[in-house]
């Protein structure tokens, strides 16, 4: 590769800018994490001090752990998030392919129809969704949540994926057709691998609101056996809560799993991005 695009001065400036922004990005998370290990007095006396010596306390975590089965909650959150992402990506990519690949009457309208959902806050449809789940017997099941999140994630997935699919070369697809590949094979074998970076991006974007959602678990699956982590930790976050140890610990517990998930997905994401770029 070419050396003209690489000089040490630029590289130092690049690292400087990135380090500065990384600090800005991580600082608040750091503040929450260190304070979750401190006594209440220490949190307020010196919020930036490390949790050492007298300041160290696990009282917050003890309070939180007493309150429920956090391992089960984590498992529920995990199942809901992964299953929803799977359906969003599969159904979303299929629809995006249909929209970007084929000229048919109503293509544009169908695209618009599939985008309508991101234009209205889905919360206002709560009662109708709840009635639907009651009628179909899905209330207090994880499937109810998976269906809602799949529907909620589809518009964005279709929108982003169809934009990326338009950039996939026609020659490639036509070559496949000449070789006698079916449209399904073209989609699964030729196009999907090429839009992997976009798929990874959609997965990461959708993972966050699903994992962090409080509203639909509260309405559709509030039972003890189907509680999600976010719902389980909401007990500590309310108008009359002064127990900051517990609040900070609950928040930290809610951050950690999603951080781990993100690190796993981000490996995939980067692998996807690089493999998509190299052709």
């Amino acid at each position, binding site marked *: 590769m070419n050396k003209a695009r690489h000089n040490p001065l630029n590289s130092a400036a690049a690292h400087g800018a990135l380090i500065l922004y990384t600090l800005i990005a991580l600082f608040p998370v750091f503040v929450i994490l260190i304070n979750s290990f401190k006594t*209440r*007095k220490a949190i*307020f006396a010196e919020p930036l001090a490390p949790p050492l010596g007298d300041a160290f306390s696990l009282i917050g975590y003890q309070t939180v752990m007493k*309150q429920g089965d956090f391992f089960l909650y984590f498992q529920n959150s995990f199942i809901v998030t992964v299953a929803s992402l799977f359906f969003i990506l599969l159904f979303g990519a299929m629809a995006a392919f249909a929209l970007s690949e084929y000229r048919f009457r109503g293509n544009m309208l169908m695209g618009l129809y599939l985008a309508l959902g991101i234009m209205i806050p889905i919360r206002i449809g*709560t*009662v109708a969704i*709840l*009635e639907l789940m*009651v*009628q179909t*017997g899905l*209330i*207090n099941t994880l499937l109810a949540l998976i269906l809602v999140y799949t529907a909620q994630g589809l518009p964005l997935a279709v929108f982003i994926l169809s934009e990326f699919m338009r950039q996939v070369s026609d020659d490639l697809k036509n070559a496949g057709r000449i070789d006698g590949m079916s449209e399904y094979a073209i989609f699964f074998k030729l196009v999907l691998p090429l839009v992997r970076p976009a798929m990874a991006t959609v997965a990461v974007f959708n993972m966050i609101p699903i994992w962090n959602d*409080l*509203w639909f678990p*509260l*309405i559709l699956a*509030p*039972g*003890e*056996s189907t509680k999600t982590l976010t719902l389980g930790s*909401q*007990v500590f*976050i*309310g*108008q*009359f*809560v*002064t127990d*900051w140890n517990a609040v900070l610990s609950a928040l930290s517990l809610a951050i950690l799993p999603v951080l781990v998930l993100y690190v796993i997905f981000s490996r995939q994401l980067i692998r996807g991005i690089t493999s998509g770029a190299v052709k």
Partner: protein
Amino acid sequence: MTKTRLAALLLTSSLLGGAASAEDVTLTIESWRNDDLTIWQDKIIPAFEAANPGIKVVFAPTAPAEYNAALNSKLDAGTAGDLITCRPFDASLALYDKGQLADLSGLASMANFSDVAKSAWQTDDASATFCVPMASVIHGFIYNKDAFDALGIAVPTTEAEFFAALDKIKADGTYIPMAMGTNDQWEAATMGYNNIGPNYWKGEEGRLALIKGEQKLTDEAWVAPYRQLAKWKDYLGDGFEAQTYPDSQNLFTLGRAAVYPAGSWEISGFNAQAGFKMGAFPPPVQAAGDECYISDHTDIALGMNAKSAHPDEAKVFLDWVGSAEFATLYANALPGFFSLNSTPVAMEDPLAQEFVSWRDKCKSTIRSTYQILSRGTPNLETETWNASVNAIKGTETPEDAGKRLQEGLASWYDPQK
């Protein structure tokens, strides 16, 4: 109808899980009091279950900010629990009018409550009562006794003494005189305006006159509390504009502020967190010897989901909630939530005892905006939050605030037109 039955079936089957035996009935309580979860689990529910084999009770609270929206959605779709914790006045009345809360007028233990206690959970003509009253909360000021002793300040009884005390604390500089912020807005109205206001509008007299349209929010009695709030500004901590409710609580319990405009519900939390002696005093009167008035607000009650699958068992529980046994248990487990039961309850907590003793010296009233007056748009309660904050910050004069609120109220409330 089949829809509801299906819902109830699904709900109960999922809640029963498998732990309970086949004949056991499980009742679920919807509540916004997530702070009280352990008290219900460890004290209240075991006491009931021991006396009533065959009925299991689950306390399933929602964070307060989401409670109304989540409950209404669940009631509309038929998935709400059997027992519903009732907010006072219109929020619950609306549920009753929609047929979602059952009429409990016939419940035997309703006889244990006075008409005033029941008034927050009745139809306007008092013909039907739909929730069993549980508790009221009293407003006043909690103070740091150690700080007052160290500075040689006596408990103030008049406004002049109150501000003299605040001046003294401010001049000394060790403590922030008063812990309150305006970021969350509601404290300014609830612990500010409606705390000190009854002394000006003479409690029930003024409150009822406002409802009848005989007094206006531009009258001196309703504007003067804003004038006092405007004076509070100088005694609040730096940056009080962005100070939140938990900030204020922590400022006080960490011993950094001397006075806390309070509701009695703070007592149990403060007892657990403050490392100093505390006392309390009612809102100071304008001049020595004036009759004093306190806000003794009917705050929380328990009703029954009209579509409950187990109405008989739910009524057994509600009957127990209306008993003297429950009153004693609840008032002592949650000092600061004062029983509304006619049977006197012995209180063990000294601070709670101090608050409740004001009922004998002063005349009780409830928050002025809660009954009838917050039915329309603009909503008087919400407007009062805003006006109280503006008054404290000095961004709106007390007179302008009164005028704005009066115009808003008159725009939809006929007796005020």
